[in-house]
């Protein structure tokens, strides 16, 4: 009987540990079954990805619909190639949709935002997003602003 | 090996060192089968080491140890654990498992080495506890027992698997006269009733001499003498006589080896 009680307590302990792991997975890291669901991949070329990293979010209307899988430099086009994995459920994106690199908040992380286009043709696995908007680089912005101010003064 | 049946344990040319200290120097000891053999000698002469050599908890630097036809130092781990099932050892402290009660302590060897059903284990355990007179104490924990009772429980545990060879490490140390008498009687009784061979390592002269059929006196890494208790009592070897009569000074000096006393004192003065 003593062993049985002991086994019961130990069983509860192990269960508590596993439950904790489950809580961490679901409640804390927001892991859901859909996020590991099937995706299709598209790619886009940007002049400047400044600060975008793999596994950054891809959003549309502020809702996450996928993530960045790879970032590489294309030496023939002298621009950055970004591979995106888009949730298969979002399969109605027009081919001329725009991909832009945005910043969450003033100094937050970079992510890719997609704004919808008007083409009848849809994005499929392997297609390219032609319309892209590069990341805003704060130094360039300030530089341009200063230049404008100077030329106005003239 | 024509005398294999007469001697259960044979130590041949055993040399054992601990660091630079020689504990045994080319020693031969033979333990006759079915008898109680006493190994005696002054404290720190390696008596306990001898038992550990036989039980293969230590390995000799050279020489062979034959137990029932097997050379113990050459056995693999697996065979060794098998061979040990035929040996029982009673440790100085009793060495009961503190997290098990008396019954479970005695049942332990049976549980790990046999597949006997529970009621049979119970019968055997009660039988062994009855033999040492502690059947009534089966539900107690080891820390509720007196030193003498612990040793008796440990004895019951050691004989649980009916070993052929029992080794007693200083069984009489720190016992009151009554428990000492009980243990002396038990060792002799068990030896004769179960057909065991017993090795008693001790420096308690009277008790050991009273139960042993044969005695070895060891010291300085050598066997100083052997024979029946009567033979040794009447020995004219001065070292044996010193030990047997308990004289404080003699061939085994009272003083630990040191330089001249006067010189030593003068030196301290000079240094200070």
């Amino acid at each position: 009987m003593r062993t049985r009680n002991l086994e019961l307590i130990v069983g509860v302990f192990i269960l508590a540990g596993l439950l904790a792991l489950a809580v961490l997975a679901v409640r804390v890291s927001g892991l859901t079954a859909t996020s590991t669901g099937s995706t299709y991949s598209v790619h886009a070329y940007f002049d400047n990805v400044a600060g975008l990293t793999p596994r950054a979010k891809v959003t549309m209307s502020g809702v996450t619909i996928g993530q960045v899988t790879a970032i590489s430099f294309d030496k023939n086009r002298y621009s950055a190639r970004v591979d995106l994995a888009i949730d298969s459920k979002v399969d109605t994106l027009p081919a001329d949709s725009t991909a832009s690199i945005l910043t969450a908040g003033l100094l937050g992380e970079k992510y890719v935002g997609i704004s919808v286009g008007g083409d009848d043709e849809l994005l499929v696995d392997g297609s390219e997003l032609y319309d892209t908007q590069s990341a805003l680089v704060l130094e360039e912005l300030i530089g341009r602003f200063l230049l404008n101010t100077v030329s106005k003064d003239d | 090996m024509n005398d294999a049946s007469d001697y259960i344990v044979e130590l041949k040319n055993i040399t054992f060192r601990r660091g630079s200290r020689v504990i045994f120097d080319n020693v031969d000891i033979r333990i006759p089968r079915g008898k109680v053999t006493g190994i005696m000698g002054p404290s720190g002469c390696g008596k306990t080491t001898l038992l550990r050599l036989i039980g293969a908890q230590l390995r000799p630097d050279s020489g062979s140890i034959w137990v029932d036809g097997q050379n113990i130092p050459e056995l693999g781990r697996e065979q060794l654990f098998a061979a040990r099932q035929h040996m029982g050892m009673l440790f100085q402290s009793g060495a009961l498992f503190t997290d098990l009660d008396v019954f479970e302590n005695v049942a332990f060897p049976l549980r790990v080495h046999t597949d006997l059903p529970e009621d049979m284990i119970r019968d055997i355990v009660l039988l062994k506890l009855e033999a040492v007179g502690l059947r009534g104490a089966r539900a107690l924990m080891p820390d509720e027992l007196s030193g003498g009772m612990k040793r008796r429980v440990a004895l019951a545990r050691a004989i649980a698997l009916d070993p052929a060879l029992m080794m007693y490490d200083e069984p009489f140390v720190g016992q009151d006269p009554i428990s000492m008498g009980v243990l002396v009687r038990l060792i002799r009784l068990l030896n004769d009733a179960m057909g065991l061979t017993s090795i008693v390592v001790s420096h308690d002269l009277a008790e050991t001499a009273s139960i042993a059929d044969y005695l070895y006196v060891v010291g300085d890494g050598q066997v100083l003498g052997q024979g029946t208790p009567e033979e040794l009592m009447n020995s004219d070897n001065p070292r044996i006589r010193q030990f047997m009569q308990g004289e404080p000074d003699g061939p085994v000096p009272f003083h630990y080896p040191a330089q001249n006393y006067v010189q030593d004192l003068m030196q301290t003065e000079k240094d200070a």
Partner: protein
Amino acid sequence: MSLVDRVVLLGRAGLDTLAALGRSGLFLVNVLFGRARFGNGWTLLVKQLHAVGVMSLAIIVVSGLFIGMVLALQGYNILVGYGSEQAVGQMVALTLLRELGPVVTALLFAGRAGSALTAEIGLMKATEQLSSMEMIGVDPLKYVIAPRLWAGFISMPLLAMVFCVVGIWGGAMVAVDWLGVYSGSYWSNMQNSVEFTEDVLNGLIKAVVFAFVVTWIAVFQGYDCEPTSEGISRATTRTVVYASLAVLGLDFILTALMF
């Protein structure tokens, strides 16, 4: 003391350390890959899981709760200056999952369970229980050491997970219920920034590694100690010191490799 003597001392210390490392390695191999366990191995493991895991649960829960609460309080005071106090949830969760969860659990585990393991095994050695077990024909490595080692491996990662959850919950209590951070942003900021593989699994891997090292050190120190009361107390101290140092050192290496 001449220079040569010092070099000799250094050499001797080096050799002793190497010998101890070798012994502990052999010891581990013997425990893990020795001959088969006995039939009642499961019962032994359950007993040790109780002694090592369940008995450490109280200290883990209490310290996890307080550490989470302190993190939330400190984090709030700093973040509120930047007007981003909603990020307190993410800060608490990331700190706990990546660092404090595994590390503090391992340190507490070394103090609570590790020292107890060392003392217990050392005592069994000093009272000749291990020797007498050998003479009964039972390998103490299998019967005494292995269940304790496995119990440590299994229970410490579980404890670390419990620690993280309790800490995050404690953080929520302070931030949401007391300091008035909106509970929706506390949890959603956390969920947005915490990645399952990156943060939770890496933290779990850390906990597993620490569990391995702490338990190994604890049982080895017990088994290798000098069988006297003085030797046991020294071995217990060594367990806590070595295990803590090993955990902190390994934590740096693992963090450098992971993040």
